[in-house]
């Protein structure tokens, strides 16, 4: 297991909880587009978490967001949206790539095909024509 840098796991958890708090306590109506916008906004946070060796649980985060959005979006859809925001492995160091692998593996176990989708996104294993 990789050691977490600068206690970033705590910071990451607080930030995710913050967004869930915002979604839960927003007085008006929310739409799937808003939730997707938040997930997109979190792309840099996911990247930072991986850089700090935080093996975060996407399934737990997806469940939190799904509940916070009053089950407007299914957990699987949120999990897929999060996977879509993960960084390109080719831009990461070896250690960080290992962390990324552990992160995606959890989703792959729950929802097979997530890894393929991730590979396609970053064109991993695709030979140049």
């Amino acid at each position, binding site marked *: 297991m990789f050691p977490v840098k600068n206690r*970033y796991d705590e910071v990451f958890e*607080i930030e995710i909880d*913050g967004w869930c708090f*915002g979604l839960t306590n927003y007085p008006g109506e*929310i*739409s799937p587009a808003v939730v997707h*916008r938040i997930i*997109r906004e979190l792309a840099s946070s996911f990247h930072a978490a991986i850089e700090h060796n935080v093996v975060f649980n996407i399934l737990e985060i997806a469940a939190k967001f799904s509940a916070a959005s009053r089950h407007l979006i299914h957990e699987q859809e949120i999990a897929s949206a999060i996977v879509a*925001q993960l960084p390109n492995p080719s831009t990461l160091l070896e250690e960080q790539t290992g962390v990324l692998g552990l992160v995606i593996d959890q989703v792959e176990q729950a929802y097979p095909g997530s890894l393929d989708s991730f590979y396609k996104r*970053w064109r991993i294993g695709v030979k140049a024509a």
Partner: protein
Amino acid sequence: MTTHHGAQYQGEHPDHERVDQQIIQARMLALRVIAPPKSRIGEILRDRLEELYGRLGDNVDPAKRRELNAANQDRLTEGPEFQSERARQTLGKNNLVSSLGTPVTELNIVVGASELQQQAPKVERAESIPATPKLKTQSGANQQATSQASQSPWVWVLSQLLQTDLKRLGLEPDEMNDIRVFLIKSEAAKYDKLELLSKLPDSLSPEAITKIFEDIRTLAAGYVAFVMVERAQSEAGAEEELKQLIDLPRSICSPFYGINTVNFDPADILSKMG
């Protein structure tokens, strides 16, 4: 060894200022080693909070925003947004075919008001898009069409049809959402041309989404700030307790530090004195 306290130190040591500095540094070092730096988590959270505000707030320094975005620049050009745009262009060119086998560009014809009225009661999950868009008042030949359209959850049905197609294309959820909104807006534009529609529902309006998003972000930032203060206070309290427990200042700056102890037996001295 140099001393720094007592009569021996005062005015006698040539480098007393330097020694003083060393002691201060040692003290600080000891504090750092024994106790963690004060509110480290607070510092990290403060930085994070600044970034959170900086990314989205109105009072953002453009230079800072550029700096924050620079790291993700490469990704953005090859990431979902770019792919969404690409997919959008592809869809535009290829004239996407709906699950009913009808080109999407003709869906405004397929999705007739009377058909939609029949389909509407079957809807179980229509929370994402309001069913009834606001309509302008019409007169003459358009009045009947207006009446039908006002009773039709056309946006929702259209959304469902498009979603089926987009799922078949194997797009990511966020891309799918973007394209769905884009296509619905395209259809809405046709209604607009016919002067049947005055305004898109809020769930499809980028301005409304941005407003909601920023409100949620403010709530999130408030939460982070609250937790930051709470953590910082608890850590500062723990540090104080630790200092009291080990009595750190006295142990380092002891007034007896550096004074040699002399072992003697008073009885022995008295006997020598006779």
